[in-house]
């Protein structure tokens, strides 16, 4: 492949020196081996070492490099650079405070994740060997446990933007259902009580932005629907 260049418009903000954020115009020459947006960003860093973003596994499992790419949230490492219309406009994930450049403060996101008690609750003394679970029951966890906590979903959700302190958001609710759906977990009613609130669960209006952006192809809206069904079922 011949040399190709990419024109970027990137949100820049360094609290040490910038009074306010600005969009930087910058072009970078790619090598033939640069396939993903992350490759291009690493190439860009070779040119300007002050551009800050998080990255680690570069294969879509660690969830570090979520950002807003041409208006849509996604992972830089899973986004093919050649497929992106130029200029490629990069912004930090929307709705969370910006620390610097493409790095957001994820405290609120993780606070909501922690609020659903994201761990197995089963107070019975465990058996000597594994707890048994049928393959069918285990299958219920598929599409739930694979979440990488990248926050693409929650930061694309208007309900989370308006009420990040009150609405758990799609990522947290997906995790909540992951434990509700686990036959080994015994805290069903406690978990439902925890979500029985005008905001925590019911601010989801099923607009499915979360589904649209999830880089792992997960469906938080469906999980939220199932929690709502469980709420209804226990009310009657």
């Amino acid at each position, binding site marked *: 492949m011949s040399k190709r260049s990419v024109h970027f418009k990137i949100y820049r903000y360094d609290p040490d020196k910038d009074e306010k954020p600005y969009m930087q115009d910058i072009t970078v020459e790619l090598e033939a081996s640069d396939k993903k947006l992350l490759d291009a960003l690493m190439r860009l860093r070779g040119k300007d070492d002050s551009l800050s973003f998080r990255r680690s596994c570069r294969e879509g499992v*660690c969830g*570090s490099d979520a950002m807003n790419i041409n208006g849509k949230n996604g992972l830089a490492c899973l986004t093919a650079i050649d497929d992106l219309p130029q200029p490629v406009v990069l912004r930090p994930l929307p709705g969370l405070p910006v620390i610097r450049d493409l790095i957001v403060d994820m405290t609120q996101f993780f606070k909501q994740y922690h609020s659903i008690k994201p761990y197995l609750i089963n107070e019975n003394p465990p058996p000597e060997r594994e707890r048994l679970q049928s393959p069918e029951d285990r299958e219920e966890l598929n599409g739930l*446990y694979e979440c990488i*906590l990248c926050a693409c979903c929650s930061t694309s959700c208007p309900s989370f933007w308006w009420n990040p302190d009150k609405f758990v958001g799609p990522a947290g609710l997906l995790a909540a259902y992951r434990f509700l759906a686990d036959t080994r977990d015994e805290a069903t009613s406690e978990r439902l009580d925890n979500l029985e609130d005008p905001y925590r669960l019911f601010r989801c209006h099923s607009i499915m932005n979360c589904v649209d952006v999830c880089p792992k192809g997960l469906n938080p809206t469906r999980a939220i629907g199932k929690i709502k069904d469980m709420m209804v079922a226990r009310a009657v």
Partner: protein
Amino acid sequence: MSVAKRTFDAVIVGAGGAGLRAALQLAESGMKTAVLTKVFPTRSHTVAAQGGVAASLGNSTEDNWHWHMYDTVKGSDWLGDQDAIEFMCRKANEVVVELEHYGMPFDRTDNGKIYQRPFGGHSQHYGKTPVSRSCAAADRTGHAMLHALYQRNVRANTQFFVEWMALDLIRDAEGNVLGVTALEMETGEVCIFHARATIFATGGAGRIYQSSTNAFINTGDGLGMAARAGIPLEDMEFWQFHPTGVAGAGVLITEGVRGEGGILRNNSGERFMERYAPNLKDLASRDVVSRAMTTEINEGRGCGPDKDYVLLDITHLAPETIMKRLPGIREIAIQFAGVDPIKEPIPVVPTCHYQMGGIPTNYKGQVVVPKDGDPNVAVSGFYAAGECACASVHGANRLGTNSLLDLLVFGKSAGETVVEDNLAGNLPLRPLPADAAEYSLSRIARLESQKNGESVFDVGLEMRRTMQKHAGVFRFDNLLKEGVEAILKVAERSKTTEIHDKSKVWNTARMEALELDNLIEVAKATMVSAEARKESRGAHVRDDAPDTPEYPNGRNDNEWLKHTLWYREGNRLDYKPVNLQPLNEGTEQIALAKRTY
């Protein structure tokens, strides 16, 4: 300059599998513990492990820990310490079952038990037939494990310091370890973490190579810190090249693919592993498969326009099997190789994957160094577990699925030992030297003031190319000799790296420069140790140490059945004996033998 100080009973550096498992142990003990981590815990590299965690549960084929121990010793090419290996294999069922109790979503057998699949080098009856020993959650076992461990730590209220990069180990004049200095990414401030006990769980340094399955964060921070503080690094010549990294991209394709029936083929479609390992074939040990692949490529039987890769074929498997057992692999193949493995084979090459060596420890997780004629004297206050440590259970070559097991067993063991040592009164809070943070501050000040220096990007690239060229899958005496000179030159250049970004907040340029310092120590240790070891063993295979009747597989037990110790100061080597004695009386020693699969 005054530096803020925080005091804890224990500080754990790293929040991957080993760090999180150690943290759980300490949380239960009530010791006040801080876990420092460069990235949010679930972003640690454990997340990328795919195929499974070894335990002789025997859920679908008969199994026991003796066979697992035999396989591990043989896999290590007898360089592993048999006490530590016995300890790990005996503990495997316990720690895997615990993980299940924590909520780990293992796949299940029809009768509801943990699903197990075959993996390279794991066998029944001491090498006779393959065994299903790898406990798996689809092909996302590391992800499922890391999240389960993090979640359990949320339950335990573990105190994390997220996005803090540890900089240097603090030791007093007697050599006792008193904690670390660390840099908070969000503020750019340096802080002292003063503690009775310090546990390193900082992972590997696979980023010393050009072609690597490892994450960007795998920069050997713990090894760099240890080496700068005078602790030797053990067996650093032994690096695992995983047979199946995606050609070009380096992204890992789990051995579980071959465990589920995948086959490696050369350009004529031949299943070439039948020639190299007639018994276990594609499921031979990783070093064996990587060398066979490299030989095929070197002899012109590679695939593609440049004949520079081989093919991993699963097109004969049922699509349902692939979707159920290998869904993540399918995603990776589509994303990074541009092929759907249901229809087309995946182009793969051996790719740097795992560091067998590391900070020397015993099976309890205590860091041990030679002192007064004893090769294994514990350094007071210092512990290590996981890939950064060398217990040594992997010796000269690690078996697949033994890494996740290592994290669980030795993470737990290090935590338990800290608790025991503390209860025994062996961990006083020793006074900090007045200059405890000086060294770290001077390294940062040097970076701030450097003018006309070297680019971090360029020096890093030169290091990775040097390692790839001079210390790869096959090793050559002349290349190693040149490699030592070359890497020392790169190390010189790294002393004058310059960054242009001088800001405080989330300065990734500074972080990468500091990471490079750590990588350079690992690269030097690797090259110098490899040049010196004049035999072939496990992953270290030299052209001038071929297979002969006197030296089977080129292995020379008379002279080289010993662990390498590399010291940063003076760039010098020392050696210590391999422990061939199992832990318990009555456990049979695995006698030296030629390794064949």
